[in-house]
């Protein structure tokens, strides 16, 4: 069985805080793997101060350079308020010189500089010390687990602080099986391809570079001149995501083009038509050419591509066809020019297969009529060509629909999985149910309203005061359900796309990052 080398940092202060800073001096949590590596290297070097690093320790640290560890950490929250200290500059020689000249008013108090603190408050209970664990696959470090442990453990146990010097820790190294690791308390942070928190991790060469930098630090003042210590470069940034955070869903985005290859525009209220047309073409293409690795393709097409579910099934494991209203600035018209197909997490391969085959396909409206030969009848709108593209960064699709934010607001209303009977309590329960069905299990606060958040988007009401139809055209099976516009607020930034509610597979309940 494969094993893990676990480096554990336990915060020993009875009121545990962490003062470490990340990029741009922002509070860092969880502590980055680079920080843990530096603490380990520092302790190993301090144990043999004045001597070169032990060859075996060096070998283990070299192997650890290129590993991206898993992190298990207690909940950490940035303090709501910081504070500013004034600490003395080390310039008392100027003050004593002034005293010697007879200026007894000279004071070290006039040689101070500010030092701001904004710590992370670590959640803890009395039963155990709050601990951060870094888990490294042992097979990537050494063949002999016990030898590796006996090499690195003394260095780990010599670590005195993680973060600032006042963040004192008791550290240890252990070898764990995966089942042992599963029992460790805390939030599990795994590397992720997108979203999450950006943490610094070491990369190959960091050991030599840190040793070089330390030497430069010791000689930074030479002949009265200050030589800055070069910044550390043998690092990289890796995004880490908690296992309770919603997994980013794979997606493919398409432009809608008309016959002249200009952007095709479709009314906002009728977005379900675009969703329906894309779904129809997707079913056709997959019938013609199903993925070869799918066993029962007819069943797969029926369930995943078409979305016909067993009534008893609680999870709707299917593609969502999501028209994207144009938003992103005050004068955006909200018309549909793009469409996105969103797959459940883990279905990247199937989505890619489908998206490749839909690129260049034509959508044909139900009432489409081409112009006749003598031109007596004008053509109706269409056909519409799907053209796959990668949404450019900083444009509305990337920033509003696919960005990361703790706060999200609906563009199209969420159709609740039931009727609320005009009771707020029932609405709340239906929203909770919708969140659960969509896989948004991270704790969040929500609010709802009928009015849209964005200009050119429509109310969640089905009828106006005169009883006439208003708002969005809905598929027949969703017409009897309650719809609301919603705002979600998560404790951590969550990566889009987010769709919620009973209509989430056909363009309803689409959320965007507020601008």
């Amino acid at each position, binding site marked *: 069985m494969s094993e893990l080398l676990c480096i554990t940092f336990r915060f020993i202060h009875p009121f545990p805080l962490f003062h470490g800073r990340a990029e741009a001096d922002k509070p860092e949590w969880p502590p980055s793997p680079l920080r843990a590596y530096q603490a380990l290297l520092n302790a190993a070097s301090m144990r043999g101060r004045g001597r070169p690093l032990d060859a075996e320790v060096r070998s283990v640290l070299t192997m650890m350079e290129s590993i991206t560890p898993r992190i298990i950490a207690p909940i950490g929250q940035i303090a709501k*308020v910081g504070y500013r200290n004034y600490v*003395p500059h080390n310039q008392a*020689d100027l003050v004593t*010189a002034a005293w010697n000249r007879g200026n*007894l008013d000279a004071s070290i108090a006039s040689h101070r500089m500010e030092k701001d603190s904004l710590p992370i408050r670590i959640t803890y209970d009395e039963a155990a010390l709050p601990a951060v664990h870094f888990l490294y696959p042992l097979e990537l470090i050494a063949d002999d687990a016990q030898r590796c442990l006996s090499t690195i453990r003394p260095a780990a146990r010599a670590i005195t602080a993680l973060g600032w010097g006042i963040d004192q820790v008791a550290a*240890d190294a252990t070898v764990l099986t995966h089942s042992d690791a599963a029992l460790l308390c805390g939030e599990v942070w795994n590397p992720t391809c997108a979203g999450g928190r950006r943490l610094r991790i070491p990369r190959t060469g960091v050991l030599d570079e840190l040793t070089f930098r330390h030497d430069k630090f010791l000689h930074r003042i030479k002949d009265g001149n200050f030589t800055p210590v070069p910044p550390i470069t043998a690092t990289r940034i890796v995004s880490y995501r908690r296992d309770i955070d919603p997994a980013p869903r794979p997606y493919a985005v398409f432009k809608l083009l008309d016959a002249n290859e200009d952007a095709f525009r479709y009314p906002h209220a009728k977005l379900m038509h675009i969703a329906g047309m894309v779904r129809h073409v997707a079913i056709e293409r997959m019938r013609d050419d199903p993925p070869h690795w799918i066993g029962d393709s007819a069943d797969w097409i029926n369930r995943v591509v078409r979305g016909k579910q067993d009534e008893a099934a609680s999870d709707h494991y299917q593609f969502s066809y999501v028209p994207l209203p144009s938003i992103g600035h005050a004068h955006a018209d909200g018309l549909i020019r793009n469409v996105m197909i969103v797959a459940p997490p883990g279905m990247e391969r199937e989505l890619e297969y489908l998206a490749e085959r839909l690129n260049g396909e034509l959508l044909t409206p139900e009432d489409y009529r081409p112009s006749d030969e003598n031109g007596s009848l004008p053509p109706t709108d269409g056909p519409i060509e799907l053209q796959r593209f990668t949404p450019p960064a900083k444009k509305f699709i990337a920033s509003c629909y696919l960005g990361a934010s703790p706060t999200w607001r609906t563009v199209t209303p969420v159709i609740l999985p039931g009727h609320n009977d005009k009771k707020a309590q029932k609405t709340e329960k239906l929203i909770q149910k919708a969140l659960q069905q969509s896989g948004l299990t991270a704790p969040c606060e929500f609010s709802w309203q009928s009015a849209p958040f964005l200009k050119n988007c429509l109310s969640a009401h089905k009828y106006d005061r005169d009883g006439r139809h208003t708002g969005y055209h809905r598929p027949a099976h969703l017409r009897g359900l309650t719809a609301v516009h919603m705002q979600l607020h998560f404790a951590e930034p969550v990566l889009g796309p987010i769709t919620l509610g009973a209509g989430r597979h056909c363009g309803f309940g689409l959320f965007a990052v507020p601008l």
Partner: protein
Amino acid sequence: MNVKEHDDWLTNDTAAAIVIREPLLSVEGADGVIFPATYAAAEDKNVFPGGYNIDPPHGEKNVCLVDSVGSQANRIEPLFAKTDYADLVPQIVITAGDKSVNLLEAGHRAGDAIVRCTSLQKCLQDAFYNVLKGDATELAKVSPTSLVFGVWDSRDTQAKLPRLLASTIRAFDVVRLTRSAQFNPAADYIGLGLLEDTTDKKTKDEYAKRGFIHVPAAGAPGGVIAKGGIRRDVTLSLAALRLISAGDDINQSLMLRRYVLGLALVALTAPAQTYLRQGCNLVPDVNQPKCMTLVRADGNRDPITISHHDATEYAKVAASEFGVGSSQSVSFDTELAKKDIAGESNVKPTRKRPGKAESK
């Protein structure tokens, strides 16, 4: 007193730290108003507008910083200048003009620039170079508290030693109070025609500054009431203590560590200074005795008891065995200062860039 009593902590890496939790009370009683430390506003006032550090600023479940790590270290270290403990460490006094400063009061300890223009400079420079080579004996002979509270020779060799002892006082679930006041001038200067009446704000502000008109002051910090109690938390890192050595000499290293442990235990167990500032006089809560715990590297915690008397006795024996460095009084040396300025001293001037600040 058996000086080998705690050798296991000094040689075996299973013991990581000693932690003390000590409930405190205001001298006025549990519901007395105390005045925590006030802090300047941060550059971004949204981050911190200044005043007491209460987190979160609103609501009942909060934590208030009463005395920070740096402030506590400043209060604890001068303990070794007191008669009962003065023999445990060398007393180094630096005289400049009519003023004299004990090195125990210097903000950066042995790394403080106050020694740069004294005869101690070369001695401490050599001591720090030895620290970089793994031998802290010489530093312990001159400034052993630098080994207890941490040191960074930021103006010269850059040698660093971690802090062993950290202490903080916090109050829990505090209710913030404000106070208002009104200054009344001795005479109605404007009413009596002694000063010209004005509607100009700038002139009115000048009158106010000089006490010629009534000046109200509203909403100033008025202390806090700690509903969840006040606690002093002290930690002594044994892992950091084991990083101190006397080169490759195992016996000498052990004696050095015993000496530093003795000093650290004295500082750890000494009765805390009760008077922190005006309005903040805190004493131990006799109904909730302090608890002391030995924290193991694997996270286990064992209750232990070390009285201040035992700690002092241990420190005396360990100090006697190690040999306390000799006390001395050194003067500011004008010739050294001239050489320093001219760049001819052992330590080159660094005034092109001021030494980086370090909290005590």
